[in-house]
């Protein structure tokens, strides 16, 4: 048997971005370390180190821009198959490294360059396929650019974070909108989504000069977006399947609940309630990391060329993440030590997920590559 376009296959596989993936993983690890340091949950042996102090200051920039921005940039570069598209994730990863190593301004402006390059890549995507979901992908990249420009010019977190989370939330919304095409088109779905996203961007923009009003609008929009997902997403149907599609649907539905909690928390924080940790981490961990756990078994084979054998064990880190987040946010309300413990368990859940992926890759290898008894017997 010959594959007639073997050369084409090699061309498709020309780029396996291992160094970039390693750098993205480092951004994740240091971002998590910085977050734990903020809560006083790091071992004293490394607690005084310079890089950890910088990681704590740049926790959100590392998690959102340097880690997720790089991973999303890699994902898009793999899809568009343009060499220049790799410049965006390279810039975001190097920007994160600068934030850790000391040249913070260079790091912030590399983030601006990364987002601008990424927006240009999304223009290419939009031109290749003019559609609602590709327009939303571009809009998401513009939100990232806005957040990075504010960060580089020294704006406060209440101005920057709505744009950074907007980047992630709209990227996810774009991907879900694309999947809703499998369902019968409901006339109200798109106008409602556009209304919710307009409110979200109005809230993000207002957060720079009227943080109370901006935060209130932004949080309401996030909660409304969660309702939109629960009403219109295909996850409510695919949860009735089995195997990987069911697991992904469970991740998505749980994530939508956290998105609603994050939105409510964001609005209440803007009104003065002490719910900042709830707003940020219901959104960042409960929603965004749930989405990441949903898509990793599909995306990792695409970007790292590693095959994954899906199994029920994937539910263990997912359950651990949601249980530990509940402990952190609900328990933390009563006792600060529960918040720290929850945060450590959040990190452990992510580590467990990484171990699960490694185990699933080894399992695939044994299922598909290992010689069978018959192979051995027949030489």
């Amino acid at each position, binding site marked *: 048997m010959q594959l007639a376009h073997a050369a084409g296959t090699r061309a498709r596989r020309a780029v396996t971005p291992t160094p970039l993936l390693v750098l993205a993983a480092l951004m994740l690890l240091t971002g998590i370390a910085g977050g734990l340091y903020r809560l006083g949950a790091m071992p004293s042996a490394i607690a005084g180190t310079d890089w950890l102090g910088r990681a704590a200051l740049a926790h959100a920039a590392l998690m959102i821009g340097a880690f997720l921005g790089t991973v999303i940039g890699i994902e*898009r570069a793999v*899809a568009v198959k343009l060499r220049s598209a790799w410049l965006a994730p390279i810039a975001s990863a190097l920007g994160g490294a600068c934030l850790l190593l000391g040249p913070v301004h260079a790091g912030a402006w590399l983030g601006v360059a990364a987002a601008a390059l990424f927006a240009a890549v999304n223009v290419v995507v939009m031109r290749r396929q003019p559609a609602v979901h590709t327009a939303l992908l571009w809009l998401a990249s513009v939100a990232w650019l806005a957040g990075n420009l504010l960060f580089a010019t020294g704006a406060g977190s209440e101005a920057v974070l709505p744009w950074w989370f907007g980047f992630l939330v709209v990227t996810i919304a774009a991907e879900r909108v694309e999947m809703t095409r499998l369902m019968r088109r409901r006339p109200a779905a798109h106008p409602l989504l556009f209304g919710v996203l307009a409110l979200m961007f109005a809230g993000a923009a207002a957060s720079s000069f009227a943080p109370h009003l901006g935060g209130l609008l932004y949080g309401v929009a996030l909660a409304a977006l969660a309702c939109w997902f629960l009403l219109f997403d295909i996850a409510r149907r695919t949860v009735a399947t089995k195997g990987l599609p069911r697991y992904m649907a469970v991740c998505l539905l749980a994530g939508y609940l956290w998105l609603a909690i994050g939105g409510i928390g964001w609005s209440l924080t803007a009104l003065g309630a002490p719910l900042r940790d709830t707003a940020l981490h219901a959104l960042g961990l409960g929603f965004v990391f749930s989405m990441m756990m949903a898509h990793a078994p599909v995306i990792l084979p695409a970007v790292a060329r590693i095959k994954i054998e899906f199994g029920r064990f994937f539910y263990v880190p997912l359950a651990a993440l949601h249980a530990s987040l509940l402990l952190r946010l609900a328990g933390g309300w009563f006792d600060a030590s529960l918040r720290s413990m929850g945060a450590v368990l959040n990190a452990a859940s992510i580590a467990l997920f990484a171990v699960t992926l490694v185990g699933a890759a080894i399992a695939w290898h044994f299922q598909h590559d290992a010689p069978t008894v018959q192979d051995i017997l027949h030489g």
Partner: protein
Amino acid sequence: MSIVDVGLVYGVTVAHGKIHLRLTMTSVACPVADVIIDDVENELDRIAPADLQIQVDLVWDPPWTPARMSERAKIFMGW
């Protein structure tokens, strides 16, 4: 549901010692296309006679629409 149910397979021809399969994706931003093509090639490799070449092309014209979904897929998705 398979990729055939979703309507991603535009056609398969067997002629002149070659299996030629045309495949699309629902989104140009989908990074999984190469993985799906690899899987299709491997499945064809498994079932096709050994003397046939395999060619899988990713095409975007005509664009995918939900009208391409099978009845089974539409029923499952609540159409």
